[in-house]
């Protein structure tokens, strides 16, 4: 009996964490916000000469790949947060930290409002 119930329970739990809409996109919004913030931090440190060019190039590649994957995972890409993430993707590798942080702030506000809803 337990052997039959356990997989059922696990699938039910897994099912609860899936879905569509802003609630389901929340984890991608968080990821995009974090990637954008990290990108800004890296560009800021790079402009101060604290990082090696090889490291910066490798991190930029990773950040861009993951931002694109995150953007493609959204269930509502036309939403406000979808557009913010698209705007981040469109930034050049050496974008100004302030510009990147502006998008991060927007995403953070959306994230906070979804979490408090």
């Amino acid at each position: 009996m337990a052997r039959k119930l356990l997989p059922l329970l696990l699938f039910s739990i897994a099912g609860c964490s899936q879905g569509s809409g802003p609630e389901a996109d929340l984890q991608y919004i968080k990821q995009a916000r974090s990637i954008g913030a990290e990108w800004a931090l890296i560009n800021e440190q790079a402009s101060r000469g604290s990082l090696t060019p090889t490291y910066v190039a490798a991190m930029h590649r990773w950040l861009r790949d993951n931002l694109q994957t995150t953007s493609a995972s959204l269930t509502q890409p036309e939403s406000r947060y979808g557009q913010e993430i698209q705007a981040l993707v469109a930034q050049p590798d050496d974008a100004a930290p302030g510009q990147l942080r502006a998008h991060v702030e927007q995403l953070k506000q959306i994230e906070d409002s979804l979490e408090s809803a």
Partner: protein
Amino acid sequence: MNPLELTLGIMTAVGGFVDISELVFAAKAGSTFGYALIWVFAFSTVGIIVFSEMSGRVAAVAKQPVFNLMRHRLGLKLGLVTLAASMIANLITCAAEIGGVALVLNYLSGAPYLLMAVAMTAVFILSIWVLPFKWIERTYGLLGLFMIVFAAALVAIHPPWGKIAGGLIPQVPPGLSRKELLNFAYFAVAIISAVMFPYEVYFYSSGGIEEEWSLKDIMTNRVTAVLGMGLGSLLAIAILSNSAQQFGPANVDPAIPGTAALEAAIPFGKWGLILALLGMLFAIAGAAIETCMANAYSIAQFFGWAWGRHKKPWEAPRFTITWIVLLLLGLGIVLTGVDVMTLVEFAILFSILVLPLTYLPLLLLSGDRKYMGEQVNGPVTRILGWAYFAVITVAALAALPLYLLTSGGNG
């Protein structure tokens, strides 16, 4: 006591604590929950010290490595289940470490990630084949000490020491939503699993036998376990605290090891970055070798084959073939293109499921006067051992539901 004797513990600890999963989980824990999870590191560190000391003492007195005990204490059927589960956990962990080393080399040199994974696997095979056990542990253990740059970075940024000390007190941050509470619980379970990875005990006890520990080494074992694991814990706490100070306020949730290296770059510039990356390279490489060797030790000990690096590779042929095949399997997993961090999450999950089965036979044997004589567990070790066993059993039961409910801590 020869200070170099301590390198076994240092390598186990630095490789165990500050492997790829520890790097990412410590940094993520700090950015997400500030200093509130430091106590989980401290709590788990005492646990791994208790069980490492126990496994070293059993190796010195009963001359029995962990997997020998498992077969005798759990019986063939349950022993086989444990062997299979720990093999999967160690193999996934080994693959994650190989991927981690390749990533760090990519940050350092810009060379392609997959090419670096192949090259480093060849280096691992060569170094295990050529180097005596003592030199394997000294090379990776001591070079991994570049990681101390993370502790220096913490001092340099003048963190709020009072808050860090406050993090040592068991706590759940007030005002968390249900979702955040579940995330906090998932992080706590993941940290317990990452700190108490079973491979550390397999490697440590087998290493004690490789070094022919006897009764006269009981004190070396005790000091090694406490200092080695203690140092590893301090480094992990430094990474967490740096992250709480530098990443949390900047809205960064570190998701890859490259982010953690920024912690040293911010106060020390390029040299800080390079030292951090080198430390990560050797610590993760040490963990890759530990996981692979731990797996080969387990299999050889379970089936009663000749084993050990104190023998020439051709004197223990099945053991030698096993560790080579395991490294190649780990590389094969990386070459499929699976994300390293996905591997880390699965490694953590599988490991915690195996933990109770790893530590139960050890507790039973080290508490058995017939085997251990005068060196049987004292009252403090006995109470601590059973208390930690209860905690890891609860953590093992909670791990999978928490993983699903929080989407692996991303919920």
